[in-house]
């Protein structure tokens, strides 16, 4: 499944790029990221916990950054698997700056398998977009933060961050009703 979009971040491109390749920043920005350990140059092992409310899934996986051309481009490759299924994806990020605003254009391909693919068809695209939006919103906060300042406290959305995944699910569990 293709996903693409554009996000505008009110922060300088160099700052944004630096944030984008900083594992501690990534750990805070990737929705539901519970662990991000470096395993090689620009390669990390990750634990992602995604979900909303009761709907949760834990994924073990890898994040790798490739094709790095600061401050304008890199490619991120992610894979993960867990009880509800697996996901993998790769996306190109292109950064341009205009009047102090960094425009990130992303285009990627996400594949989902297992239960989430079999039962969450209608949600996946939306969920992927939601995850991307959460990621960039968090990233903007990071990039705006003073370099020396402590990292911003997790914004409110973090509680919901996991929902990128739950998103997938929604339709899923969901039967025709919408009850609960």
């Amino acid at each position: 499944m293709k996903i693409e979009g554009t996000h505008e971040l009110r922060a300088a491109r160099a700052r944004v790029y630096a944030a984008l390749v900083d594992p501690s920043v990534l750990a805070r920005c990737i929705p539901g990221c519970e662990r991000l350990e470096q395993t090689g140059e620009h390669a990390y092992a990750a634990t992602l916990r995604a979900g909303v409310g009761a709907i949760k899934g834990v994924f073990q996986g890898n994040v790798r950054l490739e094709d790095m051309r600061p401050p304008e481009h890199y490619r991120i490759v992610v894979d993960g698997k867990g009880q509800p299924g697996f996901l993998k994806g790769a996306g190109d990020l292109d950064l341009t700056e205009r009047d102090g605003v960094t425009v990130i254009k992303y285009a990627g391909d996400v594949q989902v398998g297992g239960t989430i693919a079999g039962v969450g068809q209608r949600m996946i695209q939306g969920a992927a977009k939601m995850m991307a939006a959460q990621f960039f919103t968090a990233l903007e906060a990071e990039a705006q933060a003073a370099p020396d300042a402590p990292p911003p406290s997790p914004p409110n959305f973090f509680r919901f961050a996991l929902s990128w995944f739950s998103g997938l699910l929604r339709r899923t569990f969901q039967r025709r009703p919408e009850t609960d």
Partner: protein
Amino acid sequence: MIPAQFDYVVPASLAEAAALLAERPDEAKILAGGHSLIPAMKLRLAQPQLLIDISRLKDLAYIREEGGQLRIGAMTTHYALESSARLREICPLLPACAATIGDVQVRNCGTIGGSLAHADPAADWPAAILALDAELVATSANGERTIRATDFFVDMLTTALEPGEILREIRVPLAQARAQQAYLKLPHPASGFAVVGVAVNLTQQNNTCASIAVGLTSVAAKAFRAGGVEQALVGRALDEQTIAAAAAHATDSVELNEDLFASADYRRHLAQVYTRRAITAAAG
């Protein structure tokens, strides 16, 4: 088909439920009608460790008129709303919407509060609640607060409810003038969920539209009010052309859902057609 294990408690009161939820906000889940949660649990996509069953709190199921408002308990079932003769008189949108949800078995069990708290982007209630400009009352161990419907739906499956909060009541302002309302939905052939659902609530004076609210569901990641449509109609006579022109704004500045059944383009088109038809039905 078989859920993972969990603990189960039946609180004696809403306060007790809120206290239990506050203890384990990440692990506990409120069980209302169960028709969103249990299917998710059967697929093991949801594996809460504790279910707090509030379905036995009978004082959460009611339809009352109070202080110029219609007050609906969160545990009121879709069927209770669908079959209320009083609602058909004073707020026909609610029974009209309820009648389109799932099937009779679902409506017998599913609750308006459960559905709203789950915030499925294809659920029917959010459209109606938005069109009625309702307020939602959330309760928690820290007390109670009121959330406007327009602030309630945050994103796909995501509401403004904080962890630890339980949706307790839905409050619908009762219009002074006779409200004209309609809910129109295209159901998905397999799931019965809305492909597009449009709720309309309007009043007319002297043959012009005095007020109008249009809520759309299943069009985007969350239900929303079609402000562009509303603006194009207030103060105008609701003739065919005016309605059609206004309906063209149904999805202004909205990113559309797409799925196997309907592309984004088609969904946009359906949203416009159903908006026009729903307004026409309400005004007629």
